[in-house]
């Protein structure tokens, strides 16, 4: 294909879909999941797929690749019929997702642009509520079709919150903090202790101590408690950060992580290395969606406020920032406390999704995973954290059939990203809600 052809095709798509606002895309996604709900299973049967592809067909394709690899290298039995799954999964993806999304987005473009313009005149809350409502409806329907999707979605949402909270410290403030799984562990343990110890009958920790009349508040209180405990623990890293920067702070945070992990392994009252199980099943999808949405909103407000700008100033030049009346100690302290708070909340959510935690979950492995998400997505950017967490999380799930090879593919991808875009895919982009939800002008048309 020649270069001009390429440009023409790109232009065609730009002209076709460039003028679609976020509202249109969300409508398209909702339509796609509704179509999948209606005709997904029969369509999969027609395409001779064993069942409905769970993760947009990527999982199905990587299963085929895994089967081929096993057949070639391990002499496993190979059924050539499985090869049909690749085009079938791609066709399914095109028929159920790509085509309806594009069609609905295009058809509704004019109407949704008008709606976005109309909503833009009101308070920001109105368009935000509409967009979030649509997004939740689509995700709820999507996740409602299989338990696997539900758990993947929940864990991905939690990963977004965790990544964003680490981005405050590593991206906006420019330190290399390794303590994040530790904060998460504190949040997870403390909120589990709160729910399991106070509100639920448990074998180890005894009967429910408190019967709360407003029991819908139990879980938010537990999460806030976990987050606050993580913040208090973060003081151990935040106070040394006044005098130390860079590598020494990295090592202090790493030592903190080892200490926290070792502490939880040795506190027999908290189950030792066996951990705590039996958390109540309170972390439903709407709860997680709301908490993560709240987290993104408040972190975005934090980093775009003067406090956030102070963090950037500290990152770029601490001395100059101090000279320009930035209170660097306060800036570092707030960054660590806010970051640790949301990491603790994410830990609390994770504990109640998995309903089991042990200290081994919060080790070096977790650290590598979170760092990968932050640096893959992009530093200093809310978009980047979302992109990083979602792509690494989904990729990790989708490549699961490849077993051990997954741990070669993902690191290689990350190395390539680091070489070609050293600060990550979407680094240093402002997350402007009003602009994101506003109307889009069609190409060739004046505003």
């Amino acid at each position, binding site marked *: 294909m020649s270069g001009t052809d390429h440009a023409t095709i790109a232009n065609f798509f730009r002209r076709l879909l460039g003028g679609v606002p976020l509202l249109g895309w969300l409508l398209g996604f909702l339509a796609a999941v509704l179509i999948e709900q209606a005709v997904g299973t029969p369509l999969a049967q027609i395409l001779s797929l064993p069942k409905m592809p769970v993760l947009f067909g990527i999982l199905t394709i990587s299963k085929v690749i895994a089967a081929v690899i096993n057949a070639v290298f391990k002499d496993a039995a190979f059924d050539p019929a499985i090869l049909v799954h690749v085009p079938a999964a791609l066709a399914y993806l095109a028929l159920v997702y790509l085509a309806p999304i594009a069609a609905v987005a295009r058809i509704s473009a004019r109407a949704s642009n008008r709606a976005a313009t109309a909503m833009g005149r009101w308070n920001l809350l109105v368009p935000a509520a509409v967009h979030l409502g649509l997004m939740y409806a689509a995700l709820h329907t999507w996740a409602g079709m299989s338990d696997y999707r539900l758990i993947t979605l929940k864990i991905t949402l939690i990963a977004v919150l965790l990544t964003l909270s680490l981005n405050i410290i590593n991206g906006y403030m420019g330190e290399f903090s390794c303590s994040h799984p530790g904060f998460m562990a504190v949040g997870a343990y403390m909120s589990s202790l709160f729910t399991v110890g106070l509100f639920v009958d448990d074998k180890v920790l005894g009967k429910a101590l408190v019967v709360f009349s407003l029991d819908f508040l139990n879980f938010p209180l537990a999460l806030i408690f976990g987050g606050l405990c993580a913040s208090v623990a973060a003081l151990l890293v935040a106070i040394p950060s006044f005098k130390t920067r860079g590598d020494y702070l990295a090592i202090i945070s790493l030592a903190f992580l080892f200490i926290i992990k070792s502490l939880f392994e040795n506190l027999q009252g908290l189950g030792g290395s066996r951990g705590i199980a039996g958390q109540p099943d309170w972390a439903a999808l709407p709860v997680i969606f709301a908490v993560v949405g709240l987290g993104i909103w408040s972190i975005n407000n934090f980093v775009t406020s003067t406090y956030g700008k102070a963090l950037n100033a500290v990152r770029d030049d601490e001395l100059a920032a101090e000279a320009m009346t930035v209170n660097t100690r306060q800036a570092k302290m707030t960054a660590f406390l806010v970051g640790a708070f949301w990491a603790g909340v994410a830990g609390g959510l994770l504990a109640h999704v998995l309903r089991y935690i042990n200290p081994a979950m919060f080790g*070096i492995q977790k650290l590598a995973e979170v760092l*990968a998400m932050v640096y893959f997505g992009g530093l200093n950017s809310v978009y980047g954290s979302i992109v990083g967490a979602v792509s690494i999380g989904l990729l990790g799930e989708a490549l699961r059939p490849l077993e051990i090879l997954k741990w070669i593919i993902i690191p290689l991808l990350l190395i390539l990203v680091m070489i070609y875009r050293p*600060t990550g895919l979407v680094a240093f982009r402002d997350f402007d809600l009003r602009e994101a939800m506003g109307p889009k002008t069609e190409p060739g048309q004046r505003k």
Partner: protein
Amino acid sequence: MSLNFFMQNLINALQWGSFYALIALGYSMVYSILMLFNFAHGDIFMVGAYIGLGVSLLLLKIVGTGAAALVPGWLVLVVTILISMFLTAFVGIIVERVGYRPLRDAPRASAAITGLMIGIILETANILFLGGQRLAFPQLIQSHTYNIGGVFITNKKIMIVIVSIGLMIALHQFVTRTRWGMAMRAMAYDFVVVPLVGVPLNTIAVMTFAIGSALAAAAGILFGLAYPVLDPYMGVSFGWKAFVAAILGGRGSIMGACLAGFMLGFIEIMTVPGIQILNRLFALNIGSNLRDLIAYSIVLAILVFRPHGLFGEPYSAKLRL
């Protein structure tokens, strides 16, 4: 707690610390040149141990084992160490070319990420090719135990400590007495200006990675002799702890890395008897598996009071241009 008991633990701590010190040297040398940490270094240690395993098995096959052997075991060991150091140096060079040279101008954290990822790839490749089960390291030399005044010392322990200290002295001689060593010191002093007067940055960087990896390979083989079970993840915990030692010694300080390595080994080994003494004196009941907790708390305390490490220069706002 008799003096014997203390001496016994001191010997163990020396052995344990010499692994840390050898690995920490690799971190510290790379840091002094590039102001970056090579986070794949722990896994290079693991690769070195496996290369040593392969080389020694090959040599044993050639020269034979037991009474029929053509050459004594210690000669096989020396040849194994030399060949593995040479081969592992190339692993270090590859890591530099793939993960660090393209990122010379990137933010430092990005290079840290590539280092971490190369480490994961090395572990995974090992599992992929060798199947992930633990492998036994051949015992190249016969173990003898000497009883010196109630302290039991094996010949392996003595050998490990002597070989590692010998390697450290050799490195020190290389850095202080040769032209290349002088170039390395100059580069560590300022890696922006020194290349302008004709010292090749890339060559020096490659050399640093090669020497560090060779030392890690020696540590890996010595570790295999002392604890003859290798597994693909052995580099992870060792690597991170040696990294802690490198920082503790003061970044970029070779002397500091050695001493801090031995010190970390000492702290780790001595916490167990220390806890026992505390328990006996004050009738406490502290579990001896608190080793990591106590060791890292000591490290944390040292770093809080001496933020630039034991032998490092105080933090300066030296810019990375």
